[in-house]
């Protein structure tokens, strides 16, 4: 797929925005300003931007514990994300969710998810709903290679296949689940090989290559929207950082391995290409803009209060579905019987 310079700049902006936001989350964590832990996707940005960039704004995204990038790729603002991770009332979920439990309805973002593999059935349900409502939406279900060993993966892919749902299952295979190498717990080197068990297309792409990811996602999403059913899309990628903030990722990965992958940093390479294309001024300009957005977002988050007790209410959704809309029809039905 070809890209114009302005498009290339925007893609760079999206990836960098994720990278810098997560670096900032790391900084906030190190200062003890965040709640709980946080799982960063530093190094994996091309997956989020490549896939989401090939989708429509109202396509659903169901994310994982490592989901900040997926949300930002959807176009969500950084400030309420940082605020949420810092537990503030101005966060996307008023601080009730935290990093692993963030949904943003305005962006059809059905949530980061603390249960590994838990999102795949939910995404399948969103796809079923889209199909039944003929809304034309596609569901994008992100997960890691570790999650591909969970029963939910199997159950979700089988259902999506038999119902030919508009969904793309995106496996971000970063080679590790926490500190366990994939080969140790995963019986196939390529997760895409599992597509054969469901009679659906399985594709593996270089997750460090933005355009390759985007092209594969474009095809899978197009097929899904056209009624062609699900695709299992695997992106081989790597997290430069540790699993979570309590891990720096060095104990179980060889220096050289990390270094070799860093060589392939999608952001650095993309930036170099832009500079080579003579876009340095625009690059510097957007980089400066991102720094400003991050500074403002940080100040916004840290200046925000924590939610009041009132936020604790609402374990139950208050209103029941209005009977009005339906009475007449069911009235008729009751009569005919």
């Amino acid at each position, binding site marked *: 797929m070809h890209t114009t310079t302005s498009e290339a700049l925007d893609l760079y902006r999206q990836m960098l925005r994720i990278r810098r936001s997560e670096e900032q989350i790391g900084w906030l964590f190190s200062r003890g300003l965040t709640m709980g832990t946080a799982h960063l996707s530093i190094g994996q940005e091309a997956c989020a931007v490549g896939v989401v960039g090939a989708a429509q704004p109202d396509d659903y995204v169901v994310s994982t514990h490592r989901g900040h990038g997926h949300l930002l790729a959807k176009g969500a603002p950084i400030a309420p994300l940082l605020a949420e991770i810092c537990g503030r009332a101005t966060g996307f979920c008023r601080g009730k969710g935290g990093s692993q439990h963030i949904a943003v309805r305005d962006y059809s973002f059905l949530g980061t998810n603390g249960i590994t593999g838990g999102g795949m059935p*939910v995404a399948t*349900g969103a796809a*079923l709903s889209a199909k*039944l409502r003929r809304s034309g939406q596609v569901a994008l279900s992100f997960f890691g290679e570790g999650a591909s060993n969970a029963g939910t993966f199997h*159950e979700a892919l*089988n259902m999506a296949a038999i119902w030919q749902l508009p969904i793309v299952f995106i496996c971000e295979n970063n080679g590790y689940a926490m500190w366990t190498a994939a080969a140790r717990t995963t019986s196939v080197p390529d997760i895409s090989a599992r597509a054969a068990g469901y009679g659906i297309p399985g594709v593996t792409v270089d997750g460090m290559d933005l355009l390759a990811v985007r092209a594969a996602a474009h095809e899978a999403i197009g097929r899904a929207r056209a009624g062609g059913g699900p695709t299992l899309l695997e992106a081989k990628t790597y997290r430069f950082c540790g699993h979570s903030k309590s891990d720096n990722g060095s104990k179980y990965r060889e220096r050289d391995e990390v270094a070799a992958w860093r060589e392939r940093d999608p952001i650095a390479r993309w930036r170099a290409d832009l500079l080579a294309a003579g876009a340095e001024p625009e690059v510097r300009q957007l980089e400066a803009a991102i720094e400003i957005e991050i500074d403002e977002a940080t100040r916004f988050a840290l200046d925000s209060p924590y939610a009041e007790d009132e*936020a604790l209410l609402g374990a139950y959704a208050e209103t029941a579905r209005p009977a009005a809309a339906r009475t007449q029809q069911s009235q008729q039905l009751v009569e005919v019987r």
Partner: protein
Amino acid sequence: MSRTATYRDALYEALREEMAGDDAVIILGEDLDNGGAFGVMGDLPERFGDDRIIRTPISENGFVGVAVGAAMTGMRPVAEIMFMDFMTLAMDQITNHAAKIGYMYDNQYSVPLVVRTPAGAGRGYGASHSQSLEGWLIQVPGLKVVAPSDPADAKGLLKSAIRDNNPVVFIENKLLYPKSGELDDNAAPIPLGKARIRRTGTDLTLVSYGRMLDLALDAADILASEGVECDVIDLRTLKPLDADTLLASVGRTGRFVFVEEGTGGVGAEVCALIAERSYGSLIGRPIRVAARDTPIPSAGPLEARVIPQLADIVEGCLESLRGV
């Protein structure tokens, strides 16, 4: 007008009417054809077609999760778990997803989901097909739990459960399906969270739900012949509890007996509620009549010694009357 119908048919009618009334209502479950496992589906598959009656694979956690995702995005799914024992497989999607999504995502999404499931023993199915696990569910914040004891409640409560915007686990009882009772075609849905006083008396408050309710009523008859008058309360909704009705009754009678088919978890919660909030009005020790703390055996004679029988309930009431 009023007519008689079975518990099974009442459930069928509630599903049919709610599906006819709202295209968002869909049903997901295993083997929904030929009436489904217990005959509740009737002609719904022919009536509403494959887009709304969705046959799932044997994937309990998976299809409940599918129902959660559909509920978040505009549908009102009714998922059926063929035996409550299999709900053990779906507890993650029920507890960590359906029940939490509203609150933890700050109510940006609601999960108008009903999970229907048949519970209870009495048919010799054995340990993996006879359990009553509602004691777990009432401990899950965000869930509502309903368990009707007769056709009218089955229909009225299921309609309300489907219209509710919260995840509701709707517990049916295998032995109640053929039970018949009065149905009023013009009856309004029955609100969740309201218990029903089935009999009034001044001596003792006898509380139950589901299949055990009829046994409680029988016990009350027997006790009446002994000159003991019981308030018999059908909880109907196990979560949230109708504390007012329970406390008011115990306030009058001072004695409390709880009957359930499970191993005692629901009774423990109600008993604790009453001990905490109506302690002063108790004049005798509260009594729980529940299943023995063992898996449920298949052989009828053994099963009958594990699951509460009428005699156990009468004995429990006499025990309560003997006082401290």
